[in-house]
């Protein structure tokens, strides 16, 4: 039994020791149901399952109903109601990984481990699964093995890794045999290459430590907000809301308790720039949060790190601890009376929807990651109902730099409406995938030259919730007003099948819909099926209208941004790649539906009746 060792250590029956463990875990979080996600993550890590017994006990300890605990446990992909292997391997199943040879890597793992994807080995040692984009598209195919990540996998390396794991090697030792001696940053760099291809002067160039925070400490909250407003900074998480304005709303909202939350959920497939910032500029990120806290009068902060980036946890914990020691977090920051702020890490558990700020707040509150109805907006009613600023990692980094370099310095970069620089995560069919920091305003064509992707036939700007554009639009520019992106740029060469890409992204949205709204939960399934029909060459011309109609319904009736943007892969390719669809449409002969296959429709009955058809078997009776 998997728990046999623990039980022996403590001289308890396994079941009893599990219960003790759960009590310890809950106690570590003060039996607070608001920390349910942390509790469940810890139980999952320790016991590899959230068992029914565990649910009952956790409910008892935290004062919730069992169904509420189960509601959280069943919401997140990384939590599981059935036992998972002690080593759980999650292959990144993004389209970029598929094109980079995922199938062979997957086959290698399956062969060596002796299980199929989706299975757990009989001895409970291994689980093998697929998971959507884990933020490593620049080094695909990639995989998570418990809390570590493996990148640039080949069938050979996969076989080797799997064999070593089978021989009992710890996942950590796959990275380095001196893993335990490495510092957190060394570990992160061993696992993941950050591929910084172009450093701009704001974020990835030289950054003087805490200069922005010092300037902010010397300024009043009103002055900070004014600087940020004048800089023209807009949110880098995708929606592009004016940051200064957001901070102003929160600063004027009523109530004494306010929060600053950093959105490091980075779930949009093809986006990985926050990963790079969190590894290379973690101090700057916290600095920006601290500045925001001073601006809006918040004393508490949360950094919400997606579960896929758990390999950065220690690194971030170390940075937080170090800043506390150096007086940059805690009470009287930089000696300023009453400038108090601290940050806790909240680790997610595999849910794209948790990047949407309402869902992110729900998740921080220990609830299933379902979006909240807006208004009210988080700036007045956010975390625990208090005014809350939620910003992207990059937004906080920019804010810190603006406090140092000045609003005008930032405003003068980029172009009207889109000021400053932006990080772009570029992946797919190009020579130099990685992160690029450029001022806003670059054209797709220039971008493609810079990344070695001149062969591109299609470029996905802003991930699947953005737009897929074709060659005749490569003059368009990367700005908020033209092609807006939270940072994802995925390049596809002419060898790629556009419909395969679209179908993949629709399956992503089907998988990630939280299920609250019927049009999003059900409509996306129908859209995916419709695309599959085109791929199979079974679509009618009318299916194009059907897809547009259904898309419109989903866009108009969904509660949150996921549903509102989920039809974009279809809508943007219908607009920009119409021939891809029309080439696959079968004009019906005699106005009969080519998609209806009479032979397959009667084949069951033919077998049951043990005879052939008078009508449709032409040679019958001959």
């Amino acid at each position, binding site marked *: 039994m998997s728990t046999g060792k623990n039980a022996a250590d403590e001289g308890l029956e396994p079941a009893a020791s599990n219960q003790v463990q759960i009590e310890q875990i809950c106690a570590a979080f003060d039996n607070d149901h608001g920390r349910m996600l942390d509790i469940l993550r810890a139980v999952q890590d320790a016991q590899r399952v959230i068992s029914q017994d565990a649910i009952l006990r956790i409910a008892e300890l935290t004062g919730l109903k069992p169904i509420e605990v189960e509601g959280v446990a069943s919401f997140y992909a990384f939590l599981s109601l059935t036992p998972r292997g002690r080593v759980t391997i999650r292959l990144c199943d993004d389209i970029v990984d598929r094109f980079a040879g995922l199938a062979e890597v997957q086959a290698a793992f399956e062969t060596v481990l002796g299980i199929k994807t989706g299975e757990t080995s009989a001895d409970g040692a291994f689980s093998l699964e697929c998971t959507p984009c884990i933020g490593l598209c620049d080094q695909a195919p990639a995989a998570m093995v418990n809390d570590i990540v493996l990148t640039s996998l080949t069938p050979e390396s996969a076989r080797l890794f799997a064999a070593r794991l089978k021989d009992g090697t710890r996942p950590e030792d796959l990275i380095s045999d001196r893993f335990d001696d490495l510092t957190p940053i060394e570990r992160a760099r061993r696992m993941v290459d950050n591929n910084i291809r172009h450093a701009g002067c704001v974020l990835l160039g030289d950054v003087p430590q805490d200069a922005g925070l010092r300037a902010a400490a010397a300024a009043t909250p009103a002055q900070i907000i004014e600087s940020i407003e004048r800089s023209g900074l807009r949110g880098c998480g995708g929606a592009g809301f004016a940051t200064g304005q957001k901070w102003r709303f929160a600063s004027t909202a009523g109530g004494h308790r306010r929060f600053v939350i950093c959105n490091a959920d980075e779930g949009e497939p093809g986006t990985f720039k926050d990963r790079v910032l969190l590894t290379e500029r973690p101090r700057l990120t916290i600095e920006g949060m601290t500045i925001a806290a001073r601006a809006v009068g918040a004393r508490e902060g949360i950094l919400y790190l997606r579960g896929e980036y758990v390999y950065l946890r220690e690194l971030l914990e170390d940075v937080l601890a170090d800043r506390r020691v150096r007086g940059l977090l805690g009470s009287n920051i930089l000696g300023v009376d009453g400038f108090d702020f601290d940050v806790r890490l909240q680790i997610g558990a595999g849910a794209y929807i948790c990047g949407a700020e309402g869902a992110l707040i729900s998740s921080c509150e220990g609830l299933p990651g379902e979006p909240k109805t807006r208004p009210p907006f988080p700036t007045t009613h956010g975390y625990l109902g208090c005014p809350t600023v939620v910003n992207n990692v990059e937004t906080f980094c920019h804010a810190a730099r603006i406090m140092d370099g000045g609003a005008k310095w930032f405003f003068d970069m980029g172009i009207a409406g889109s000021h400053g620089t932006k990080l772009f995560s570029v992946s797919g069919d190009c020579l130099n995938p990685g992160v690029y920091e450029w001022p806003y305003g670059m054209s797709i064509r220039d971008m493609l030259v810079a990344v070695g992707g001149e062969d591109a036939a299609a470029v996905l700007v802003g991930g699947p919730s953005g737009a897929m554009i074709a060659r005749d639009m490569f003059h368009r520019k990367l700005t908020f007003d033209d092609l807006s992106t939270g940072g994802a740029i995925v390049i596809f060469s002419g060898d790629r099948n556009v419909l395969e890409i679209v179908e993949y992204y629709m399956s992503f949205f089907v998988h990630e819909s939280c299920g609250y709204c019927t049009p999003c939960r059900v409509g996306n399934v129908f859209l995916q099926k419709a695309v599959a029909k085109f791929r199979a060459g079974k679509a*009618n011309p009318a299916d194009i209208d059907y897809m547009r109609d259904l898309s419109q319904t989903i866009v108009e009736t969904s509660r949150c941004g996921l549903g509102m943007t989920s039809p974009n892969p279809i809508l943007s390719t219908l607009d920009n790649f119409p021939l891809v669809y029309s080439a696959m449409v079968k004009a*019906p002969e*005699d*106005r*009969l*539906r080519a*998609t*209806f296959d*009479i032979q*397959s*429709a*009667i*084949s*069951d*009955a*033919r077998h*049951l*009746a*043990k*005879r052939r*058809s*008078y*009508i*449709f078997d032409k040679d019958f009776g001959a």
Partner: protein
Amino acid sequence: MTEPRKARVATASLAGCFGCHMAILDMDEHLIDLMQRVEIHRSPLTDIKSFRHRCDIGIIEGGCCNEENVHVLRDFRRNCDVLIALGQCAIMGGLPAMRNAVMHSDAPLRECLEEAYITGRDIRNVTHNIPNDPALPLLLDKVYPCSEVVEIDVQIPGCAPTGDVIFNALSKLLDGKFDGFERESIRFD
């Protein structure tokens, strides 16, 4: 001046209950108005069993549950200019499509037939056999709405649609002025 040729109308009942055909007759005295403008060709109402002329309008009751339904429906599509799906069975499968709910089975059709003829409660079937006369058309794997088998031009909703709705739709079609229904005329709550 010559009288304009009367429009030719054909009708068929596929996997339906004949209720929709009853509803056609249920238009009462409107039937007289209608008959001044149309002649009924292939139809259970005339017992004409095959197309000898091309028809202007084809009216289909019921969806497709067996191969013969498919054959008839395709024949109608080839021989009619405007094809109407009349009633819920034709439009979406209707009551017969309840058998489509048997889907979480390796052999849904067999399961369905066995329950209907052998294992179901209250069944008195002395032969304990599933009917299998060679004259019986083969069943389809599931019940299909007409629009999945051929293109349908007009749908007249209802189970059954009222005689008035049918009469109005046909009259407008004959005038070349049909463009859907007033919401009020097709709500049933």
